[in-house]
């Protein structure tokens, strides 16, 4: 049972990795959260910086 679960888990990890590679997702990235909908007017606010 655990062996099957482990293999299923392994497949999920591989599929996730493949999807990340395909869609260009970086698991560790330096970007901020995209400020969707905010027009480009720099306000000087940098999240408390």
């Amino acid at each position: 049972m655990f062996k099957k679960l482990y293999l299923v888990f392994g497949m999920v990890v591989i599929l996730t990795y493949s999807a990340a590679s395909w869609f260009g997702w970086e698991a560790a990235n330096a970007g901020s959260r995209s400020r969707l909908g905010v027009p480009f007017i720099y306000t000087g606010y940098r999240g408390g910086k």
Partner: protein
Amino acid sequence: MTLLKANCPSCAGPIEFTAGATVVVVCPFCRSAVARTDRGYEDLGKVSEVADSRSPLRLGLKGNFKGNRFELTGRAQLRHDMGGFWDEWYATFSNGWVGWLAEAQGKFYLTFYQPMPDGATVPAFDRLELGSVVSEIPNETPLIVIEKGTATPVAADGEIPYRLSPNEQSKYADLSGANNAFGTIDYSTDPPWVFVGQQVTLAEIGLKSAEPATRESRRTTAGVMSCPNCAGPLTLAVPDRTERVTCPNCDSLLEVNRGNLKYLRTLAPPADEPNFAITIGSEGTFKDGTRFKVIGAMVRSVTIEGTKYFWHEYLLYEPSIGFRWLVHSDDHWNFVEPINAADVLASENILGAKSARYNGRKFRIFQDASAIVEYVKGEFYWRVEQGETVRAVDYIAAPLMLSQETSPSEINWSVGVYQSHAVIENAFGLKSLPRPSSVAPNQPFGGSFYYTWGLLPIMALFGFGILLLPFTGLKRTVYTDTITIPPTATDAAPQVVFSKPFELGARRNVRITASAPVSNSAADLDVDLVNDQNDEVESVVIPVSYYEGVEGGETWTEGDRTTDRTLSSLPGGQYTLRAEATVEGTQAPLPITITVDQSVNRGVNFFIALLVLAIVPIINVFRKFTFESRRWSESMFGSSGDSGDDE
């Protein structure tokens, strides 16, 4: 066809020598063993009638061995000095051969007289060592001494091809070789006679038809008797093979001698009354459908460094298979069956060898100690005794255990297979057998799957990584430019610079690299990627700093003049890069080269996936290590390492 007719010198009854090789005929009228000599006929003494051993064979039966027809013309019953009887049948072949067909514990051994080469002679009986090879005997495979003993002919019938003297003891040695080779050295003559042949099945000697009916009938055969000590009822499950039985009513040890019971002694139970997990008389069905009956149980022990360790052994019986053992030790279970001693190979003398090979597997020695019978219950096919001691050597290759038991007269090998609780509980319909807290010598490690077949996901990950490389891992530069940050009056005042618009592809990660000739100075870049279509912004901070100096006579540096940051993919389209720089440590204009790349193969995703997939195998490798440490901590030959187990 009668070769010679004569009259019995004892009773004058007519006797016939029908085979040229016949030396002795048992008179059917007075049971005298009559030998023909060059001076006439000699009465060698009376022999008993053969006891019913429930053999499937009988005199007059015709068979065929390797194309040569034979007939069973004689039979003798011999008594072993350790107790028990076996049958020897004499096969007269149509081509003049005489074969010895021995029958013991349901097995058959067909041997023929083997002349020794000129000048060669077998070692004397006393010089013959158990486990040693008798190299003087010419044979395809080496023959190993597995038993030494004394035989006494007690009964006979028909025609015997040698001078059988009733009740005259003679020494013999049994030999065993690979591929079922078998041999016997008969020390009743000088020089000793050597017989070589092989273990055979009844089918192999054309006597298959003799087997089924008789064998089947044994399933229902059980002898009901009375204990000679307490007169309580006593049932023998295997009356034709049982040598010893204990009375369930008075705990007496009884000898079974050709159907008669004889009181020997009342057994002294151990201080702790043994609590056998399986009841004698119960039946268990194993995976292959074989149904064994538990006919006996015993408590055995070994003493190691002053501590006595006990375990239980159950004697199982199935008529067409014979005897097997179920060993219960420290709440672990093993199913044990005997094997041919010659099939075990050792790198040195088989007695005390540090390793052995069997069936292509290497076994490592685990224990070498004297095993003592502490208590018995039920019936046994040998003359079991309280206090009976053998040298027991165990070799392991989980889930198998190879065991060698050596007494002064014989050497026996067996192989045990580790059984889970579920198997034993299912076989005997038991519930809640105690679970072990220790690791058994041959217990298989349950987690090896995770670092063997369980590595398949990791292999697949490498495969996917290579396959995806052409699509996602070929770097492409989409923008590069050098912007100059003008000097400022104060360090803290930020300067803002905008790039020219450039195109970013969808589904590709983005790496922004900033490179500046800073020296003992720093520039913090706040970079915004602005989507020109919808003004969505993705921000990243890229610090560029480089400091150097000399301290204590040694130069040091800190930071890097080139720094990069990577972002996940952004929606494809036209973007503008906005860089806001805060420069410290310099008042001069600072040129900063900014490069934007896509499809950068950083390997971070791959290594995270690899790490996640490797956690379970790594944990199980660690578990395996501790499992083996616990296993070998119980060994007299403790050493770490793999036991070569399989699940």
